[in-house]
């Protein structure tokens, strides 16, 4: 167990270093780029305008930007390690704050979308498995295929057109009361629901083929008992992994959806900072998304033995 945790922590650090340094070197690979962007914000207050050479030179000297990239990355990483992600070029607010302000919006969206996918996807998946090859099964499968193949942005626009523009049932975009949640959650949750449904169906079918289900029947248990006590817990194992990854994905910011619905979350922050060339924010956000993703993975790994006693334990 301890060994396992050590190994995981090692991998954890490695992935963090690789992903952040990759982003760092990419953003800084254009010579003078960083200095130029900084000069724009400091002297002109606008990314659209071009600073003079003297202004760029001044910034370079002031922030010591002629150092090697490696040493710059090192200072960034040390600061990040202590929780200091720098300040936004655009707003001058600490990057950490910029991220934390947007976190609730993203978490709300991700959590509700995942809950929806579990609450709808799992029962439908079980139903489809129990009634394998029936009309119900085919109907569920067809719906799932549709849900998976519809592109996110397309579904978002479709929903906006139908429910807010034509029927005027929901607000179009923005962040506020629960009604604002409906369209983004449905858009985000649809594909996940479909994936959960299909996985639940296939893993339930897989479990129902196992010898221990026959043993349960041999004891005289009825269908319901077999489903609940013998099948569900086994069928859940692959679903947990998938949902964990999906949740990590959503927490990392549903970039497109947050942009379409003007949802003030992490994904939106990333897009905005990229178009503003707000390098510290880009960097901080990427670090944060990676961190979230890995923490989730870590949590799943720790939760796993609860569902599958063969893993971990003694």
């Amino acid at each position, binding site marked *: 167990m301890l060994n396992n945790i050590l190994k995981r922590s090692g991998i954890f650090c490695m992935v963090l270093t690789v992903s952040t340094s990759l982003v760092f070197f990419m953003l800084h690979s254009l010579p003078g780029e960083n200095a130029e962007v900084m000069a724009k914000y400091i002297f002109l207050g606008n990314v659209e305008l071009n600073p003079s050479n003297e202004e760029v030179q001044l910034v370079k000297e002031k922030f010591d930007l002629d150092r090697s990239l490696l040493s710059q990355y090192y200072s960034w990483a040390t600061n990040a390690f202590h929780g200091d992600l720098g300040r936004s070029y655009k707003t001058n607010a600490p990057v950490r704050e910029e991220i934390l302000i947007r976190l609730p919006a993203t978490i709300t969206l991700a959590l509700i979308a995942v809950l929806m996918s579990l609450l709808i996807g799992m029962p439908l998946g079980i139903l489809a498995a129990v009634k394998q090859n029936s009309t119900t099964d085919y109907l569920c499968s067809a719906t799932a295929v549709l849900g998976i193949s519809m592109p996110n942005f397309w579904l978002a626009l479709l929903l906006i057109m139908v429910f807010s523009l034509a029927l005027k049932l929901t607000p179009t975009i923005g962040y506020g009361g629960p009604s604002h949640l409906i369209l983004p959650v449905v858009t985000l949750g649809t594909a996940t629901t479909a994936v959960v449904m299909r996985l639940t169906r296939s893993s339930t079918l897989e479990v129902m083929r196992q010898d*221990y289900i026959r043993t349960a029947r*041999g004891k*005289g248990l*009825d269908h319901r008992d077999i489903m609940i*006590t013998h099948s569900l817990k086994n069928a859940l194992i692959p679903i947990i992994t998938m949902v964990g990854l999906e949740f990590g994905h959503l927490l990392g910011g549903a970039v497109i959806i947050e942009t379409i619905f003007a949802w003030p979350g992490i994904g939106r922050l990333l897009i905005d900072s990229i178009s503003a060339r707000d390098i510290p924010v880009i960097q901080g956000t990427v670090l944060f998304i990676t961190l979230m993703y890995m923490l989730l993975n870590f949590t799943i790994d720790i939760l796993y033995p609860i569902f599958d*006693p*063969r893993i971990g334990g003694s």
Partner: protein
Amino acid sequence: MTLLSIEHLNSHFMTVDGIVRAVDDVSLEIGENETLGLVGESGCGKTVLALSLLRLLSENTKTDGRVIYKGRDLLKLKEKELRGVRGKEIAHIFQNPLSSLNPVLTVGFQISEPFLRHQGLKKSIANSRAVQMLGLVRIPSAPDRAKEYPHEFSGGMRQRAMIAMGLACSPSLIIADEPTRGLDVTIQAQIVELMKDLIKNSGASMLLITHDLSLAAQLCDKVAVMYSGEIVEYADIKEFFKGPAHPYARNFLESVPSRGMKPIRGISPSLINPPPGCRFHPRCDCSMDMCKSVHPPLTEVKDGQHARCLLYA
């Protein structure tokens, strides 16, 4: 008194390759307090035969014939009534305990389930009965072991746990499928001892499936030899060991380690297209011309011994 009588039982699988005739016109009887051994090489249909009795096969199976247990035909019973028989009147000890135990439930819970289902016991009481059962099959420190999962048990202990699960509700008939397979010799001997005691004490009847004749010799009153989905010899255990009548049964006996370990020549026939006439004729040393076309009936060779061979017809 006959407890279970199997009459003209067929179990066929509909597969893409054709119809697999895994059990073909099998008739057998098990008396009260009697242990019948079902032996035969791997793949001859023993497990399918056993699973047919409580209708535990998959849905692509066609089973017909009659399985009369205490006057009722199990094959015609409503699913709900059959559930009342399974695990209570007739217990099935499945082959391969590792895959037959649920990996995510504790062994104790899985043994307590028959109590919960058939005796309506409270969870805590069912649980302590499960611990008792583990003790009965001689698992040391049973209260702790009951809380463990199947993968924490050794092979021998898993087999004991399966036996405990089967015996939970004191069934009248136990179907035990290869209870010693895959265990090393000392453990096998322990399991045999255990089963001997348990049968003696409980007075239950048993259908014991095995490919191990020495196990049958120790536990059974009668033995049926299965070949290619059919019963080819059916005899009292004493008569059988004095001298099997069917050439395949003779070869099978000679193939056991203590009797020369002579392998049977040729390969087991396909169950989709079995050889015409006597199914054993391509491998039989006594094969005659008519064996290729005439399908032999099961005939009495002498008192207490039947064989499906044209030598006796």
